[in-house]
């Protein structure tokens, strides 16, 4: 048959193409850095973006008034040269350093600072919540800008170092359509003074960054940085192992364990402030009884979760403020895995034949194994727990409405201050979506955290927060599981990466380089 006769030709063609393209493809260039990301960043707009995935682009493309000092959570000057605070803590004046320029060559001045902060406020999307007390931004002279606050806000300086504090070129406004303040344009372009600028963005495929020729700092080692969107973890890993990628984002613990033996691959695993915990619905029986909440806390196999599920790449929590943040109590009380005690507590509380649900999503891969382990432990003490896997937005909505028994949570601080935990998790005015997702209220705790927010002295604040944690540990509104390591992997040829717990998924590509 004719088709059959043609087959050899086709086979020869296939073999030929295989030889041409096969093998561990090209070795990536020394001055090109290839990073595989799991998801396309939603936007690169500092006025809108609230995900670390978006911060990956925003941090290298923009500069802020202040920045985190290398690996530390303290801030040092970036665009601002110096600053002063009024005695009443109600205004802050920043003097801008000269020489910083946007990627079009125009200087970063006080007007740009005002434009950026006014825009964040006007858009009133997530980043707006970072500066709840900023009343007005005043241009004093081209190099001086003054922030007026409606109330003293202790973590203000720290908040300026976040993505929301990025300074945008006011010329971006020329791209505004239908009064959107350039939201559509800035979603996929950059207009900053950082070391890089976004030069191309093919949705769901790749994003290319080119150096900003007007960058004030040292010129970066890379002529180009490419972010490839590769959803499957196994594909990301294979690309890294084959040398098709230099760095891959978001590596689950199991993969990290398996990749340790791969030649030329380095696993970066660093203690982070990312905590995994469970909300217990304090407003709903039986969790309105602290004894039942404590019983659940005793039914979690902390060691099994840390060693088994997290492969030792995590640490059991000790109070709400994680290790690595000031306000953490190294002597804080920890619950242990003790089913006898849990059973006793349930008996004391007078509950039996408990039937509860566990609401979770796949947004964090640890949630399902955590639920499975808890389900098995609870079954041993006569508690039936149903697993309810829902879309992440659905989980949030159910939690916000208090329509759950136990739900999963994960939390990272936006700025380096125990405020991010204590004044959010336990504040009765922030019940539901804003952060007090356990619907917890204890007047003594409320009093301590309110006092801490109004206090300026850090030592005094720290003591107040530690005192509050002593009570909340006892009340157990949440099951405090573990703080996990941030894990990603890169080729051993990549040099100069500095980890900062406040900058998850943000790579200091301006200072990194490749040997070979």
């Amino acid at each position, binding site marked *: 048959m004719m088709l059959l006769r043609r087959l050899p030709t086709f086979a020869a063609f296939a073999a030929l193409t*295989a030889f041409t393209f096969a093998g561990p493809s090209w070795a990536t260039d020394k001055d090109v850095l290839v990073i595989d990301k799991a998801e396309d960043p939603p936007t690169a707009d500092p006025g809108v973006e609230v995900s670390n995935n978006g911060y990956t682009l925003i941090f290298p493309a923009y500069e802020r008034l202040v920045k985190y000092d290398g690996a530390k959570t303290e801030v040092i000057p970036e665009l601002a040269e110096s600053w002063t605070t009024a005695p009443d803590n109600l205004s802050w004046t920043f003097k801008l350093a000269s020489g910083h320029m946007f990627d079009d060559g125009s200087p970063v001045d006080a007007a740009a600072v005002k434009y950026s902060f006014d825009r964040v406020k006007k858009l009133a999307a997530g980043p707006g919540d970072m500066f709840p007390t900023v009343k007005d931004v005043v241009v004093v002279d081209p190099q001086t800008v003054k922030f007026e606050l409606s109330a003293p806000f202790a973590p203000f300086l720290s908040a300026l170092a976040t993505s929301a504090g990025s300074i945008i070129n006011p010329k971006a406004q020329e791209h505004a359509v239908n009064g959107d303040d350039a939201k559509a344009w800035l979603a996929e372009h950059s207009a900053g003074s950082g070391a890089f600028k976004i030069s191309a963005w093919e949705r769901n495929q790749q994003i290319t960054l080119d150096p900003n020729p007007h960058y004030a700092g040292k010129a970066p080692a890379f002529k180009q940085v490419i972010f490839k969107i590769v959803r499957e973890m196994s594909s990301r890993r294979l690309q890294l192992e084959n040398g098709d990628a230099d760095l891959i984002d978001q590596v689950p613990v199991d993969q990290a364990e398996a990749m340790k033996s791969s030649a030329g691959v380095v696993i970066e695993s660093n203690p982070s402030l990312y905590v995994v915990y469970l909300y217990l619905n304090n407003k709903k029986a039986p969790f309105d009884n602290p004894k039942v909440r404590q019983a659940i806390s005793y039914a979690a196999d902390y060691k099994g979760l840390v060693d088994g599920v997290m492969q030792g790449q995590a640490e059991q929590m000790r109070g709400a403020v994680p290790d690595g943040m000031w306000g953490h109590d190294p002597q804080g009380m920890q619950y242990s895995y003790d089913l006898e005690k849990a059973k006793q507590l349930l008996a004391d509380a007078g509950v039996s034949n408990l039937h509860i649900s566990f609401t979770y999503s796949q947004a964090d891969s640890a949630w399902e194994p955590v639920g499975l382990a808890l389900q098995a432990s609870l079954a041993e003490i006569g508690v039936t727990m149903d697993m309810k896997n829902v879309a992440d937005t659905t989980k949030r909505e159910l939690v916000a409405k208090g329509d759950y028994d136990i739900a999963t949570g994960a939390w990272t601080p936006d700025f380096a201050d125990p405020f991010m935990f204590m004044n959010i998790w336990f504040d009765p005015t922030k019940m539901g979506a804003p952060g007090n997702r356990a619907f917890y209220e204890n007047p003594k705790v409320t009093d301590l955290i309110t006092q801490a927010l109004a206090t300026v002295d850090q030592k005094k604040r720290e003591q107040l927060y530690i005192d509050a944690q002593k009570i909340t540990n006892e009340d157990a509104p949440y099951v405090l599981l573990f703080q996990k390591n941030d894990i990603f992997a890169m080729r051993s040829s990549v040099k100069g990466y500095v980890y900062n717990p406040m900058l998850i998924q943000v790579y200091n590509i301006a200072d990194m380089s490749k040997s070979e």
Partner: protein
Amino acid sequence: MSLISTILRRLVLLVFVVAGVAIITFTISHLIPGDPAQLIAGDKASAQTLAHVRQELGLDKPVTQQFVIYVKQLLSGDLGQSLRTRRPVAGDIALFLPATLELGIAALVMAIMIGVPLGVLSAIYKDGPVDQAARVVSVAGISMPVFWFGLALILLFYVKIPILPGSGRITLGIAAPPRITGFFLVDSLVAGDLKAFWSSLYHLILPAFVLAFANLGIITRQIRASMLDVLQEDYVRTARANGLSRSAVILRHALPNALIPSVTLLGLAFGDLLYGAVLTETIFAWPGMGSYVVSSIQTLDFPAIMGFTIVASLGYVLINLAVDLTYMVLDPQIRELG
């Protein structure tokens, strides 16, 4: 029934379908708990911020009013804005659809290239070993979980014996051809970029094969059945009796006639393609509609889900209409039967 009345009837159906789909998806999107505002403003957004975002999205209006607005937008071709990508859904679909179509067409071509000869052979050697083997292959194709088959092939041909790429549309480092049609194969040829062409073709092999394998069985069976029918016809027997060679009779007389009923398969294949693409694209990191809609479903990005559903159903109806019309033109008998 005449061509024109068929077309008219189908166009009325089209209106029904779009209206039905719009109502169903809109209702569902308002039944599911989940605050789209939280998707945009983030996990820690304050109540005021959420309220502001909700207002911006028009979610503070009564549901009936929201539906009226949605329908009005729909009539002007506006599918709304995706919550996840923050871009117009219509734009997203235009962006991702070509990748899916390219994959689907490649798969269809592959399935036809393998399925037609296989079907012809099994009809000629009915009940022989070829027929039995073809039957096993086609049943395996229909029974294969695509998502698992994809993984297995990646493990085999990308990991263990690395001869084929396992993800993406083109080798990184080779620039994608300038976008004209969005089909990499076409665009790279237009641009005269052979390197990009080969690389795209090469990346198509595994995912297209996975998709093709699922449709292979259907095509083989159909060709086999209609070949068997045609081989019984008088004119084939006459041609054979007149001394024409066996292969000449099959290729020149039997096959063309046996292919006509297979035209209907194109409509079926399109439905399968959409279904298969959702899973195949996820496995192969293929940047098309399939991965787009899976991500949208996972994040409950309703404007995107609704837009996709409407476009997909429209496409389905139109393709089936085209197929039926072709069939009516090719085979006048059908026209009389209606």
